């Protein structure tokens, strides 16, 4: 295994998300960095992973970047197209191993807010109205484990979130079970500075590893509570050269990796789709069928 020497923070995050997925996992995934992580996992160590998308599409094998949770890429080569309530019921039944969720604020017990920044105003007329739960509350409630992805800007990691959209461990200890939530709760918070995990007893977040070039002091300065640190603090594993190469193939115009949507012309976009189809179909053939021309 060869680690990449030339990679961006976004590419590190994609690889870190991918490593949370095991082969055979059923993963409830969105778009952006977590979506790229799932795509990367499938093309590397988890070829039997099944992606579930909120629109009702299960197990897609898209030869292009996924641009929405109901994009045609979600339907492409899917193993099942069904309805929304059916897909989410499968999750409530316990079939989904991993769910990826994001938000604007998180607290020490992994409770996430993606609804409102109230900031001395009210829920009805907040400082900032965010999009809302979507499926995040359902994923946080019922997935066997969740991976939270949130960047460490100031005032994002706070003692108490303004609104719990997606329940983590609530007040810690066994609060989650007492509330009646079936899923296992957050397993990790992947940030742009570090990875946090949760104490099995108190359910409080602690820093498990810091990303290359980041100090623990910097991480602590961005968190509004006295953040616990693992006595065995690690440095986050960098992406491998293969992971970086595949990540760039998945998002050739850098739509998620470097804000590439802003300057994307229509012609370049169509060209991107056509190239992706050729490049990614070959990559999948090689991974899944050992390069054989026979399609399963």
């Amino acid at each position, binding site marked *: 295994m060869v680690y990449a020497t030339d990679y961006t923070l976004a590419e590190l995050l994609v690889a870190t998300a991918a490593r949370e997925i095991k082969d055979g996992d059923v993963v409830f995934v969105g778009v952006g960095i977590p979506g790229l992580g799932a795509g990367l996992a499938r093309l590397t160590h988890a070829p039997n992973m099944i992606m579930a998308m909120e629109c009702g599409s299960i197990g897609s094998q898209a030869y292009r970047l996924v641009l929405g949770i*109901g994009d045609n890429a979600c339907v492409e080569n899917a193993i099942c197209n069904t309805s929304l309530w059916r897909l989410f019921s499968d999750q409530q039944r316990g079939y989904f191993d991993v769910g990826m969720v994001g938000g604007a604020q998180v607290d020490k017990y992994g409770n996430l807010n993606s609804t409102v920044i109230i900031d001395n105003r009210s829920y009805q007329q907040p400082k900032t109205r965010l999009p809302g739960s979507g499926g995040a509350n359902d994923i946080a409630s019922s997935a066997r484990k969740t991976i939270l992805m949130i960047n460490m800007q100031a005032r994002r990691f706070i003692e108490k979130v303004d609104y719990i959209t997606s329940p983590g461990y609530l007040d810690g200890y066994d609060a989650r079970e007492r509330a009646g939530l079936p899923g296992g709760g957050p397993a990790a918070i992947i940030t742009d500075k570090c990875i946090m995990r949760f104490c099995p007893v108190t359910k409080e977040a602690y820093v498990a590893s810091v990303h290359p070039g980041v100090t623990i002091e910097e991480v602590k300065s961005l968190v509004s509570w006295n953040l616990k640190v693992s006595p065995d603090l690690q440095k986050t594993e960098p992406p491998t050269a293969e992971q970086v190469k595949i990540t760039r193939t998945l998002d050739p115009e850098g739509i998620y990796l470097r804000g590439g949507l802003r300057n994307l012309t229509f012609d370049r976009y169509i060209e991107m789709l056509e190239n992706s189809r050729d490049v990614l179909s070959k990559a999948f053939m090689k991974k899944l069928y050992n390069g054989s021309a026979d399609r399963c």
Partner: protein
Amino acid sequence: MFTAPEGKRKSADKTMTLTEAFKLFINNGDSIAFSGMGGSQCVAHTYELIRLGYRGMTLFGDSPCEAGDMLIGAGVVNRIEVAWCAYAVAGLGHNYRRAVEESIPAKIEVKEYSNYTMGLRFLSGAMNLPFLPTKSLLGSDLPTYNPEIKEMECPYTGERLALVPAARPDVAVVHVSRADKRGNCQNLGFISNAENIGRAAKKTIVTCEELVSTDEIRRNANLTFLPEYCVDAVVEVPFASHPWNFPYAYAYDIPFHAQQMEAYRTREGFLNWLDEWCFAAGSWDGYLRKVGWDRLFKLQQVERRFTLSSI
């Protein structure tokens, strides 16, 4: 209060224009729900509602994009019961934000659920039951700010459950891959909440990318998710989801959407967009002409390259 579903139109030919269907089945003040999820959005329908000048409507939605944000910005909708409202990768729901944060163009009432529980509300309406229980929402702040979400202990097992009330909108607008004149609907891709929205509503307007014969429907009956007895009107509206994707039909026009979202950042930009793309264009055909048939053809053609590889 719950009653048996009202009768829907029985006719061997329910086809009409979008304007006719809306004028016939939609009234000011009605509650309305649209199909689509993260794609396949009801965009043509949103523009038509705005053009016809509807007011005082309530939106029941899972995660509406245009049908949430634009209808709020245009003053059509003043109450929403949804899980989410924005434009995902393309951008934020600036009209939704302006309405909640600054009461522009008007204050709106918001009741929040999650995607699954909105799905259960439509399922409950489709089942003609008053509510359904779930294990979502527990422990979160959704019930804190939405008194319609109740909690109970299961009378059989003692488990904690959250309850969500049935959603029975006055009107459902459902866009599908193909339908026949009687209203039998088939989707080649995902169904999202379309099957239950179409069943729960008192009146159901179906639009399709392609009108097909009943014989064609019978050939692949497993694809049918909404049978004719749920449907009041059928309208053929190709490219009805542009700039969104529609499975097996056309790819997502995300460069167009990104440009549109830039305009929506300001109230003025949004109003100019409506003037140009909704009112001056005059109809969905006018909108599509303005987008350009070359561009639409390319979106269709590139999608065909993917679907041919996957069938």
